[in-house]
């Protein structure tokens, strides 16, 4: 009974429209665990983690108790080359990225949606690409959130 109910719930929740311009999830995993799961999940989705960038250099000197704040860059080489060739101005938004930072014992993950770019690049190819990026990032975040 419980699994049936859970299945219904997940289906209904997944169907719920997400109205946010930013996707943000909280996981109860500690920062190092969440970071490991995030990178593994990105790879499982066929993407390459190109770099992990620290954003926290010097934060502790400003009164923060923790300095665990990173941005994980990822993407696919062919995808990035195609976009760079067709729309060189979009290079500033590449590679794709997910921010990850600790809050106490838990970890928050954050990514931007691509809604703000959709209206400017109406071609079917770009819309389809935005769809794919959007689906990927939402699935990645959801998988990290529900990891234990």
């Amino acid at each position: 009974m419980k699994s049936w109910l859970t299945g219904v719930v997940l289906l209904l929740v997944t169907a719920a429209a997400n109205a946010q311009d930013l996707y943000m999830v909280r996981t109860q995993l500690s920062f190092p665990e969440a970071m490991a799961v995030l990178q593994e999940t990105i790879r499982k989705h066929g993407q390459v983690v190109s770099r992990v960038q620290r954003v926290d250099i010097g934060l502790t000197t400003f009164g923060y108790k923790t300095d665990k704040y990173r941005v994980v860059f990822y993407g696919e080489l062919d995808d990035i080359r195609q976009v760079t060739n067709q729309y060189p101005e979009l290079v500033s938004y590449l590679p794709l990225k997910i921010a990850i930072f600790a809050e106490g014992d838990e970890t928050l993950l954050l990514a931007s949606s691509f809604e703000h770019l959709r209206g400017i690049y109406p071609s079917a190819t770009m819309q389809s690409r935005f769809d794919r990026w959007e689906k990927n990032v939402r699935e990645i975040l959801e998988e990290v959130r529900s990891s234990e």
Partner: protein
Amino acid sequence: MISLMVAILLPLRSMAIGEQLYAQHCAACHGADGSGGVGVPLNLPDFLAVASDDYLKITIREGRPGRVMPAFPRLSDSELGALVTHLRSMAEVPAPDYSPQPLAGNAARGEQMFTKHCESCHGEYGKGGSGTGVTFSRPRDAPIVAPALSNSGFQQAASDAMLKATLLRGRKGTPMPSLSSLGLTEGDADDLVAYLRTLRTDSVQMEPDDHEVVIQYESSYDLEQTLENLKQAVVGRNFRIIRLQHLEEGLARPGAENPRTVMLYFCNFALLNEALVIDPRVGLFLPCRITVLETEQGVQVSSINPKRLSHLFNNRELDRACQEMHDMYAEIIEEATL
């Protein structure tokens, strides 16, 4: 038998949906147990005792324009109901039942009391406290950022009776005192509510202006010289260069990266800290970066346009910082390319 099963399963399903929706949409900011984070704490008994179901539903649906809390206009009525059911489960207090009648009070008297007792936390004209609450373990002065009472979302969601109940009760776990602890009376509460209703609600632009998604200039120099110029311009503005990197580094095998697309990362730690204090989420677009790309048409230098991205955060406090970042990017790129 079937009706009995339906009677048992429907509330169970609603609770489970509410829990899932909360985890998906709310927990990131308000905490898994509602104890707060980037968002305000929701599990305080004094909050749930005065917050009506309508208040919670309107707040979720309309959000707080310009004050971080996003709107969720696409959630259905049943999903809103499920979310409220879940919120109610966070404290063992019954939902209040208010009269919809507006209160009659003396707004001029209310203003005097507001200035004396409320303004130090809620700000001039009820514009609210600064920042977004506790963030990645940074100590904060108070356990909650004082709400913007002039916010159109708040004004729309809170009834007169709910405002009065909040004033009379106060809110344990936050700096909000009860009126009686300040020596004020129920009549004073009516006057304060009357004043709160006179506050001019902010008109927050929810859609971006027609800003370009990037700041972009053609360089008069070749790639190497443009990069040198950029470094000088960056250092000249008290930024520290973090690194120079090919766009494809880490994606292509080493040595096979396109050498004609280069990213320059740089940072000013004081400014970075200032931005994170306003809103910890802006780290998504930090540290600063300018990209130089050489094509057959020439050398292009570009960065993100912070003004375009500002609206993503629904945080009015960020607008000024994003304007400054925009100007800084534009100055650096202009200096390096002209």
